[in-house]
């Protein structure tokens, strides 16, 4: 297999794992001000993600770093063309991170209220902006040999917004299901109910997204050329429906596992449609950024492949180990008793 193809797959995997892992943290953050009824419950929500949010966000840094190392031209143009959108994303992620870390380190209602808003906005904006960004990448950016002809406003087109909404809803359900697995009693039930309530909306938006994709993008071309690939969107849709079945059967862990699969398969569905493009151009096919015209040299890709194949399994191993250590549910009692809790 060509190294460009290997890195295309790794690129997709990094984004998929990132969205699967940070998706539930972002979802938890969006629910923060709505699901929790008291300060203690808000603390429970923060403590369910406290030990893992930072490690989850590193998948984003790695996806970014991998784009830089493997497809430098794509990294350069994507980040500079989407300058203002990425700036907003950056600010939101910074605010989310400090809000999680600092909320519990001060007292007073004002202090906590401020960071609560930070968690809410710092979670909603990234979810939306990532969706908008990927929606626009699926459509293609207005770029040609002379540069980029779009703006922040042009990114907020119908398809971009539908994808943004899809991401927001997907992470809301994903976060709700995570909380139904990670919290106790009434809070856990409320989280499960929230997932049940949001799920139909997610389903409608997902269907709309799949239909509009046929008109707004060329993602389906690859599927028409090799129908076997349709297995990926089929798994995505089955997992989405399976999620609801497991919710009805009161099997929260399986429902959460389904939402993990859904998130990853949604990302794969889109990225497979892009191949061999990383960012297609919507106005000049020759200016599309493909894995071939934007990649690093074979030498660099080889070195990076060796590094990835040695270290990614190690990372996955210690991550699973740490997730297992923190597998138990977090209760109001726990955060009240534990002096190290946030």
């Amino acid at each position, binding site marked *: 297999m060509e190294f460009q193809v290997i890195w295309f797959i790794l690129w997709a995997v990094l984004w998929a794992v990132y969205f699967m892992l940070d998706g539930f943290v972002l979802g938890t953050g969006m629910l923060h001000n709505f699901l929790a009824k008291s300060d203690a419950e808000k603390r429970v929500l923060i*403590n369910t993600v*406290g*030990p*893992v*949010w*930072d*490690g989850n*966000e*590193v998948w*984003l*840094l*790695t996806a*970014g*770093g*991998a784009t*830089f*190392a493997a497809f*430098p*031209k794509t*990294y*350069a*143009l*994507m*980040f*500079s*063309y989407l*300058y*203002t959108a*990425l*700036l907003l994303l*950056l*600010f939101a*992620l*910074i605010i989310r*991170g*400090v809000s999680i*870390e*600092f909320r519990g*380190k*001060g007292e007073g209602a004002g202090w906590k209220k401020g960071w609560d808003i930070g968690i809410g906005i710092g979670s909603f904006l990234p979810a939306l902006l990532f969706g908008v960004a990927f929606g626009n990448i699926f459509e293609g950016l207005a770029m040609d040999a002379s*540069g*980029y002809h779009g703006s922040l406003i042009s990114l907020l087109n119908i398809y971009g917004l539908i994808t943004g909404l899809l991401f927001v809803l997907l992470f809301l359900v994903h976060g709700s299901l995570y909380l139904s697995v990670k919290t106790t009693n009434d809070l856990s039930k409320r989280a499960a109910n929230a997932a049940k309530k949001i799920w139909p909306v997610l389903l409608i938006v997902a269907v709309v997204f799949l239909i509009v994709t046929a008109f707004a993008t060329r993602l389906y071309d690859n599927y028409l050329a090799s129908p076997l690939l349709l297995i990926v969107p089929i798994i995505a849709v089955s997992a989405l429906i399976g999620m609801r079945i497991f919710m009805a059967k009161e099997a929260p862990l399986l429902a959460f596992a389904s939402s993990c699969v859904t998130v990853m398969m949604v990302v794969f569905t889109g990225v497979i449609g892009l191949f061999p493009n990383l960012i297609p151009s919507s106005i000049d096919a020759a200016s599309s950024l493909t894995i071939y015209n934007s990649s*690093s*040299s074979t*030498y*660099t890709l080889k*070195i*990076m492949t060796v*590094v*990835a194949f040695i*270290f*990614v399994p190690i990372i996955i191993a*210690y*991550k699973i180990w*740490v997730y297992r*250590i*923190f597998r138990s549910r977090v209760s109001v009692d726990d955060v009240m008793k*534990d002096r*190290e*809790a946030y």
Partner: protein
Amino acid sequence: MDVVTLSRLQFAVTSMFHFIFVPLTLGLSIMTAYMETRWVKTGDEVYLKMTKFWGKLFLINFALGVVTGITMEFQFGMNWAEYSKYVGDIFGAPLAIEATVAFFMESVFIGLWIFGWNRVSKKVHALSIWLVAFATNLSALWILLANGWMQHPVGYELRNGRAEMVDFGALITNPTGWYKFFHTVTSGYVVAAFFVMGISAYHLLRKNEVDFFKRSFRMAAVFGLVSTILVAIGGDFSAANMAKTQPAKFAASESLWETQKGAGFNIFVIPDAERECNRVEGLCVPNFLSLLAFHTPDAEIKGLKDFPKEERPPVGPTFVSFRLMFTLGFLLILLALLAVVYGRKDTLESRRLFLIIMLYAIPLPYLAAQLGWIVAEVGRQPWIVNGVLKTSAAVSQSISPAQVWVSLIGFTLLYGSLGVVDIYLLTKYAKKGPQ
């Protein structure tokens, strides 16, 4: 202002702000890990109290280091797209490796350390902070190998319209990167040592938890003395390497205009860039500059006039920063030495003036570290990659001054507020003392 100037300003603001948190993390992670190890080994509860108190301050600082770090990776693409396209083949690799081998370890085990007190054994808990310390220092290595490549590019060939990596071994054994790594991490240890000594001094002045803070102070004093000396040794190697690989930067750091054999070191210098000379020069130590640069007293040193005007770094900021850093470095060695002596004699509590000095000395190593980066980055101008690519050619083509104004103001406001919160929290927990 144009996009280049604004983007440089923004890079300066965001990287210098980020580098307020990094050095303390580098050093305090090791000190905290050492404290916890002492607790695991001796069972002495004071060490547990120390781990928790200094660990809390470590975490407040760490959080801001993490979130401001994301910006660092994004802005190469956002503001420096031409740079990223041109050198991504060789410069992207160390960044991606940094994330893979270091960031994951650091972020996963910090989570385990914060929340794992009652979930894993004492030994595993102590191991997790050691892994954080190791990963933090490892991430410094990769980022400084990347920066070292910008200072002294190796292992590449210019082809296909860009710099392509041809020798990964050369990239990771680049002496410039290793000198920078050694000099930078040890300067981080100094920051941490003076941070611990300063806060301990605050409490010793008030006779608070005397035993606790005396032990902390003594531990930090030894760590600080060793580190200040190592910084100076690393600095000496760095300077000698700079004279060899970046002679223009070296000449600017010393404000040396004429090429000379057996160059002396002037203690008093006021550079005059316009007239290409020094307005004032005084108290010359003969041959010392040649000795410093090439470790031989009559080596020839190239003066700034031997470089075309458009390839000289700005002399003023490079020279002043280098001098100040250098002076602060020696002052810090002296303070650390006194700290060790007074700690050994057990006369700390009665030396009020010294304790007051140590309290107000907390910012000095931070300042020295920032000045060092000014020398490194301003001194490399007009190049972004020394001799290969000019900074003016590296900036993104697609962004407008208005966009960068917005982001620069945004970063300044956001980072300014975060800085206030950070100082508030650090002061609050530092004053509160251990529980």
